[in-house]
């Protein structure tokens, strides 16, 4: 099978972000950027399916600024075969990303698309579901286990009450949850090899999609700060505070 994996370049999960003074967005200058952690899990899953000889080819796709090439190189070093970069400086929102991905998928015709469940910058948790809708394909979101068969796929999903197993007809869109796998680090030889793997660069115009954002961001602000409290010396004092001061027990 042919697998398409999407990867987004986001602020690294370890960075404590700051809101810009003019409330127009987040301070991004000189900040460490990484592959969205859920997308690392998506790449890893595809690579494992290739190692099991279930997948034949893995194509990774990203949309965004020129530096997104680095994210694609990381995915190639993890084991993807080739990459597509839709290069744009526009602000990207899930519906626009889904439309661009659909245009690519109409051409690439993968059997399976694996995406992250959520980008940890916008926290939207939408793009995979939207893409599946636009394609008219089934979706398996929040996957913690993916078991392909010939023309279908069984996936286990992390749901609010526990786990759920569903069967999807292929082609399908799957989004990853944290327990699906533990992504590998690319080895140095693989990082070197990845430099020779092909990256195709496209413009939104070439895809014939309009990426203009639908939602207008009016402002970005700091959340209300929570005041730190006090340290209590022992259990007795804690119980007293909870009973008589906070009155929550």
């Amino acid at each position, binding site marked *: 099978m042919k697998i398409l994996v999407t990867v987004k370049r986001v602020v690294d999960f370890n960075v404590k972000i700051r809101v810009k003074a003019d409330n127009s967005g987040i301070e991004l200058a000189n900040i460490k950027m990484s592959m969205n952690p859920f997308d690392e899990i998506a790449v890893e899953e595809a690579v494992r399916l290739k190692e099991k000889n279930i997948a034949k080819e893995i194509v990774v796709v990203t949309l965004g600024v020129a530096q997104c090439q680095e994210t694609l190189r990381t995915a190639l070093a993890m084991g993807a075969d080739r990459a597509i970069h839709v290069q744009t400086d526009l602000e990207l929102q899930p519906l626009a990303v889904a439309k661009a991905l659909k245009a690519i998928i109409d051409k690439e015709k993968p059997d399976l698309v694996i995406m992250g469940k959520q980008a940890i910058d916008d926290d939207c948790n939408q793009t995979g579901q939207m893409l599946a809708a636009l394609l008219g394909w089934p979706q398996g979101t929040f996957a913690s286990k993916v078991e392909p068969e010939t023309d279908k796929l069984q996936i286990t999903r992390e749901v609010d009450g526990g786990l759920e197993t569903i069967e999807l007809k292929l082609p399908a869109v799957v989004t990853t949850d944290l327990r699906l796998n533990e992504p590998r680090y690319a080895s140095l030889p693989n990082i070197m090899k990845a430099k020779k793997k092909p990256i195709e660069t496209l413009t939104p115009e070439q895809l014939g999609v309009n990426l203009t954002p*639908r939602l207008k961001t009016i402002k970005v602000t700091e959340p209300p700060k929570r005041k730190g409290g006090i*340290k*209590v010396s022992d259990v007795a004092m804690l119980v007293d505070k909870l009973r008589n001061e906070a009155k929550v027990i």
Partner: protein
Amino acid sequence: MPTLIVAEHDHKNLKPSTLHVVAAAKAVGQPTTILVAGFNCSEAVKAATSIVGIEKVLHADDAAYEHFLAENMAALVVKLAKEFSHVMTPATRIGKNFMPRVAALLDVAQISDVIAIESADTFQRPIYAGNAIATVQSKDAIKVITVRATVFDKAPATGGNATVTKIDGTGDSGLTKFIGQELSKSERPELTAARIIVSGGRALGSGENFKLLEALADKLNAAIGASRAAVDAGYVPNDYQVGQTGKIVAPDLYIAIGISGAIQHLAGMKDSKVIVAINKDPDAPIFQIADYGLVGDLFQIVPALTAAL
């Protein structure tokens, strides 16, 4: 134009999150219809008729909605949506699954995890694990919204008197099939609805040691939560995870035990009314947001706390 709420329920009872969404919809200030799509779900329909603030209940009863498969739910909601200016549902796993599908089929944006409704077209939502709040405006004809339930009050469950209209379903897509589920069994309150949560981290060291938290939770009639590290290590099931990518909770009392306080964890619990942290590291970030911090070894403190209650 009116607002449509897609109810979350288990065919018998409405989930509390549904009542929070009804309260949120009030801020939009329009007549509100609620859709109960399920299988043999007349009890849930009946419950929906008595919510204060609901004028109409749409009842779709079909095996296709038994497991709320996204493809089937989305087809139905899309068919109804044209009559409404706003479509809202809780930002739970079910809502997050089908709602973006609705938005894409309507060719509109979805506004995820809304925490404030400023006007009919302007909303606030958290980004970057809640470390920033974006105010966004939608000019789309239909606003498709998932609501962060914890920040809105609950609409009264009784006192309303809505009319019921039975509607046809849109059938089964044939794309996905429900195979089975493995739900965590618990006598405890549901995590997102609990008044008190006792939450454990990596420091617990094993699933067995979570029994310490259970004893404490029994005393407090609390739910049990966990950090990602505790879930990843297999100490507790995935549905215990609190945080940016787990469940968002806001109980009256949240007791974080052996949890360091990573931003991804704080994202899920920092709206709790009172936070207690128990951690042996006096510099653990969790203390920066805790109302009451107790520095020490959880294996001594937790049994002592349980005994003191």
